């Protein structure tokens, strides 16, 4: 790829009549745009919708976060007030931030590791068994809202599965109110979240492992790679860097967005806000109290947190193996 600078920037542009004076940057661009008219036409429908439902809302959200807005009156500019209120006066927001970071710090890396480790072990299986185990691990994440099962498992009476088994084995005498006890709520949500988290990133790893060049392993064995751990470290991981980075984005982003599971299992609001996350806090102000300016400030903080963390992690991962 070192000769890339020798190429013209847009090689398939027709040059047209040779002009006497050197062409300006803009006219070169305009020609390039004209030559690729079909590209823009093909992209137009998608990009229009993408701009309308993804890019524009992000910009609007940032703008609205500096206003007082209740959906009835025209938004009123109030500067940083929403943010100062959020961080200085809103105690529950701080609980939400703490819980979200806790969820993200635990489920993010854990689910990422789980995705990789299971994909790695599965990759050593024979094809039929490999397809079956892939299904077993991937199924929870695609089966929709079956996490109601966990409500049956952690139900507070003695018919709940966890309570039933523990009582039957004589470990506890009285049923535990799992989802009404602050100490258990977070752990249970993390458990369920992990159960649901082997999704797209997991598939990307399964696929990535299958594309690692097999001759590299043989060459490695000749060069003195002695066991599977060295093979993993020196050959597999460096060969899979692109998939590792993609998987990181997928796993991290979803680890910040814990809300559905929390609301479903712990209720909304949860006992003493034990399961309040930034997203549930956002829903509280956006869909119940209609303080849209304030809710947008929460959304903007969440946006910065997600994108910022992702960019940092990308930078770190890029360095792995260099």
């Amino acid at each position, binding site marked *: 790829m070192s000769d890339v600078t020798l190429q013209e920037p847009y090689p398939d542009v027709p040059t047209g009549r040779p002009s006497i004076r050197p062409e300006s940057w803009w006219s070169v661009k305009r020609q390039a745009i004209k030559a690729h008219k079909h590209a823009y036409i093909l*992209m137009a429908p998608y*990009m229009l919708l993408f701009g309308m439902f993804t890019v524009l809302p992000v910009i*609007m959200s940032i703008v609205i976060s500096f206003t007082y807005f209740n959906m009835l009156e025209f938004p009123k500019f109030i500067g940083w007030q929403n943010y100062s209120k959020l961080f200085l006066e809103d105690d529950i927001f701080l609980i939400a931030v703490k819980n979200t970071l806790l969820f993200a710090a635990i489920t993010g890396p854990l689910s990422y590791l789980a995705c990789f480790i299971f994909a790695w072990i599965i990759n050593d299986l024979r094809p039929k068994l490999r397809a079956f*185990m892939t299904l077993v691990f991937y199924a929870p994440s695609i089966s929709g809202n079956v996490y109601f099962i966990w409500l049956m498992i952690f139900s507070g009476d003695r*018919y709940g599965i966890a309570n039933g088994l523990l009582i039957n084995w004589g470990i506890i005498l009285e049923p535990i109110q799992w989802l009404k006890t602050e100490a258990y709520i977070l752990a249970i949500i993390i458990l369920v979240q992990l*159960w649901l988290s082997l999704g797209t990133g997991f598939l990307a790893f399964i696929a990535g492992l299958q594309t690692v060049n097999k001759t590299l392993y043989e060459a490695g*064995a000749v060069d003195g790679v002695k066991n599977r751990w060295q093979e993993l470290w020196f050959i597999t991981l460096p060969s899979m860097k692109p998939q590792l980075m993609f998987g990181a984005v997928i796993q991290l982003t979803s680890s910040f967005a814990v809300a559905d599971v929390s609301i479903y299992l712990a209720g909304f609001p949860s006992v003493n806000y034990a399961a309040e996350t930034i997203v549930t806090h956002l*829903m509280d102000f956006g869909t119940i109290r209609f303080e849209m300016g304030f809710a*947008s400030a929460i959304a903007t903080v969440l946006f910065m947190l997600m994108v910022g963390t992702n960019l940092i992690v990308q930078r770190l991962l890029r360095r792995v193996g260099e």
Partner: protein
Amino acid sequence: MNFTIQLRKKRVNRSFAGSFMLFAFLAVAGAFMALPLVYAINAAFKPLDEIFLFPPTLFVRNPTMSNFVDLIALLGNSWVPFSRYIFNTVFITGMGVAGHVILASAAAYPLAKFNFPGKTLLFTTVVLSLMFTPQVTAIPNYMIMSWIGFIDTYWAVIVPAFAFPLGLYLMKQFMEQIPDALIEAAKIDGASEYRIFWQIIMPNVKPAWMTLIILLFQLLWGTDGNGFIYSEQLKTLHYASSQIIQGGIARAGVGAAVALILMSVPITLFVFSQSRIIETMATSGLKD
């Protein structure tokens, strides 16, 4: 003798103890992943007294179809005919998936194969949008939906799904591996760019279609209307089923039956398309 040689040939650097340990770990983890689903499947066939047996059992002892019979009876009584919920979900899923595959592929082709001004900016924006979840944009999205009159219509769910960023990303990565020579040859034969896209590129990215289909399918199949749909006759199957599941103890069996029906569809779809999805995912990597 033959057997040992085959084993040794299969893979270098694999100790028996290590394999045993790792596969044991995989089996335990697999059980953790599978047991809740196995329980859910069995619960759908349990008579009510067996669901609330103490101590709880995993497998059904006297399988019965009564939960499904009750479900049908319950559906007959609902205010909106249940077929309407099914139609709503099938319509939203079908339209959304079809539109997404076509629009995302059309946008992915130029991004993968041409070098035009603005390409880097557009693709970087798409990658950035993978880094946050839709909750961030929920409030402005509601405002936009009401400006364009999409509130309380199917379109509020369908149209944004067309522009689902992960689909475009995966499709673009997959298209990059189509040889340029194929496109060049078609160009020499006089095909227009649109014809090349439709007749050369699209048939060659079928594995990626399947991937986009299953990713969007699971998203739309499980939608509850995203807060945009209010009319009872427009509500989705997922909404109706969560009403049933929340019906309490008396409905526990029916709830399990409904959940089984709902989850069997995406899982079946995945079973039949797994190899093609893995093929697409091989190209999913983020490059520097």
